[in-house]
């Protein structure tokens, strides 16, 4: 919470001094080293207004409403693709982005399916959606054999029933949870067929009574404080929770695992809205972020992998060497990606999600 509120407070102070020399960035919460924001201001002389969100849906609504006032936003791949189709983003001017030479082809190849030719966006970070566990509490509930690295931990009612008392959070992100459920069932996680998608419902509905909350950011603190023992969450967020617990020295040990059944790989892309008030400043910000040292600092701080090859020698060993962040070849093979649902299917998915969450 602290790191979410701090930039907001800064925003309140800065907002009174609006001018032409400012860049407004809208990024995910807990997703940057704040020292970088100050560095950007000192290096460029531009004023940075940094605001945060915790769901793609919120960002997308702002983009589709138009006139968001932001110069740089960070949608995930599938959402980016749909927003490009709606005309929400302007093509990047790569002459103004010399640091784009630092980008990593492995990631560029994969993001191209969302943004053809990578014309509208650059990769900021990427990661997997997996399972967070409080080692001691899970062992207490399930014994030492609790399958920490398998979706069985969260999708088998008998496990979830025992975990209920120590608290389980799921991401409030149907576009990630439904593919995971389908993967567990051996179906195509990227299926857009409502009949296939429907197969995820009984599985999720069976474990839902044991889920304390569906939320996409509260689990970081809840894990770190020991309020919950298991979460389906995003890789770097879980690792941040692990570090907060270590800092607090409260005896909580958190581990992250990409499930052995296969994990969703997602990409958060920086893009410039079509109606950005300061596209010039936005390019300056993107170029700043793509600097090898800056990107390395960001990854070292938030524990997410980035799409910047040049930054890799500058990464700390516990980042580049951690397979939970930079998966090895074998795990990488096992990761899958998804594509956006068409709007008719989206309605089916959202309705199913509401039914799962509320039991109606």
């Amino acid at each position, binding site marked *: 919470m602290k790191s979410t509120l701090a930039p907001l407070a800064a925003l309140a102070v800065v907002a009174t001094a609006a001018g032409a020399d400012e860049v407004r960035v809208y990024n995910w919460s807990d997703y940057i080293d704040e020292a970088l924001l100050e560095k950007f201001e000192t290096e460029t002389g531009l004023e940075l207004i940094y605001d945060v969100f915790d769901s793609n849906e*919120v960002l997308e*609504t702002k983009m*589709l*409403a138009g006139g968001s006032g932001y110069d740089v936003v960070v949608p995930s791949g599938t959402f980016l693709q*749909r927003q490009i189709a709606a005309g929400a983003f302007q093509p990047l001017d790569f002459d103004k982005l010399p640091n784009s030479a630092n980008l990593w082809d492995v990631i560029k190849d994969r993001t191209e399916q969302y943004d053809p030719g990578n014309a509208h966006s650059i990769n900021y970070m990427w990661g997997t959606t997996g399972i967070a566990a409080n080692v001691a509490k899970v062992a207490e509930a399930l014994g030492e054999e609790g399958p920490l690295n398998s979706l069985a931990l969260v999708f088998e009612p008998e496990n979830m029933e025992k975990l209920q008392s120590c608290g389980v959070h799921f991401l409030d992100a149907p576009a990630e949870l439904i593919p995971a459920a389908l993967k567990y069932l051996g179906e195509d996680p990227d299926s857009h067929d409502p009949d296939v998608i429907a197969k995820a419902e009984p599985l999720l509905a069976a474990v839902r009574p044991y889920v304390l909350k569906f939320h996409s950011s509260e689990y970081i603190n809840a894990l770190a404080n020991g309020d919950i023992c298991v979460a389906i969450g995003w890789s770097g967020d879980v690792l941040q929770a692990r570090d907060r617990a270590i800092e607090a020295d409260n005896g909580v040990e958190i581990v992250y695992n990409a499930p052995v059944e296969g994990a969703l790989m997602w990409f958060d892309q920086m893009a410039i809205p079509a109606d950005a008030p300061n596209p010039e400043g936005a390019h300056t910000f993107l170029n700043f972020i793509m600097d090898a040292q800056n990107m390395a600092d960001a990854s070292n701080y938030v524990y997410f992998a980035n799409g910047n090859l040049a930054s890799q020698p500058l990464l700390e060993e516990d980042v580049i060497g951690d397979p939970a962040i930079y998966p090895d070849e074998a795990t990488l093979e096992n990761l899958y990606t998804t594509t956006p649902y068409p709007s008719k299917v989206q309605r089916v998915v959202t309705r199913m999600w509401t039914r799962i969450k*509320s039991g109606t």
Partner: protein
Amino acid sequence: MRRALVIAVPYFWLLALFLVPFLIVLKISLSDTELAIPPYTPTLDLSEGWAGFRAFLAALDLENFTFLTTDDLYWKAYLSSLQIAVVSTFLTLLVGYPIAYGMARADEAWRPTLLMLVILPFWTSFLIRVYSWMGILSQEGYLNQLLVGLGVISEPLTILNTNTAVYIGIVYTYLPFMILPIYATLERMDASLLEAAEDLGCSRLSAFWLVTVPLSKSGIIAGCFLVFIPTIGEFVIPSLLGGSQTLMIGKVLWEEFFSNRDWPVASAVAVILLLILVIPIILFQRNEQRQREAEGK
């Protein structure tokens, strides 16, 4: 002339702050979704003049309202919101009335201070106060620590992310809205009426039921409406304190708007919600008017 002006001001207020936004929402509720900015069609294009307006009207239909009847989610959410609003209004009354009563019976020198204490929490952001309830009610929170520490319970209670937490949050947040109108009527009450009732053989309890409560009826009604109306559409408290089983229309509206990107259906949900709320608001107005007439003002 002056009279017309006096009437015009509130009507202008109503027009600018209620009718115009309502018409915008109504217009969106009659349109269709589209992947564009803004994400619905048709949008009103006045540059084509009258013909453009006619074409715009022709493209509108009631499809989104009929859609709401095809899925039981919507009426379940309306009903559940009504239920939560009714129960929490009742709870707020139960807690608020004794406080207001105590304040009105307190020494006159103390009343401004007590009044201040009721208003004081408003000086802190509403959001921060709801967040602090999360700290109090969570599994490892202060309440559980206290109860476990005192040996009242052995296992921490799960309160956060349940409907109980939502009720606590609503009662806490809206309590001043209940206390203030009740206090206002109780404070104005003539204490000699109670003495008269007791002289005539009433016990203190029956004097309370037969004299005090009826005389504070207008305050009770005002307080109940002030709590009930915002609670029905409440979004922040259920989303922060409630769990996945908390079904409220505010959350359904959020989902239509954000997850489905279906502004037209979201607007249709909002229009229906408004219609549900307009009825109690009219009743409230009537009551106020009758009271004013009774007081001869």
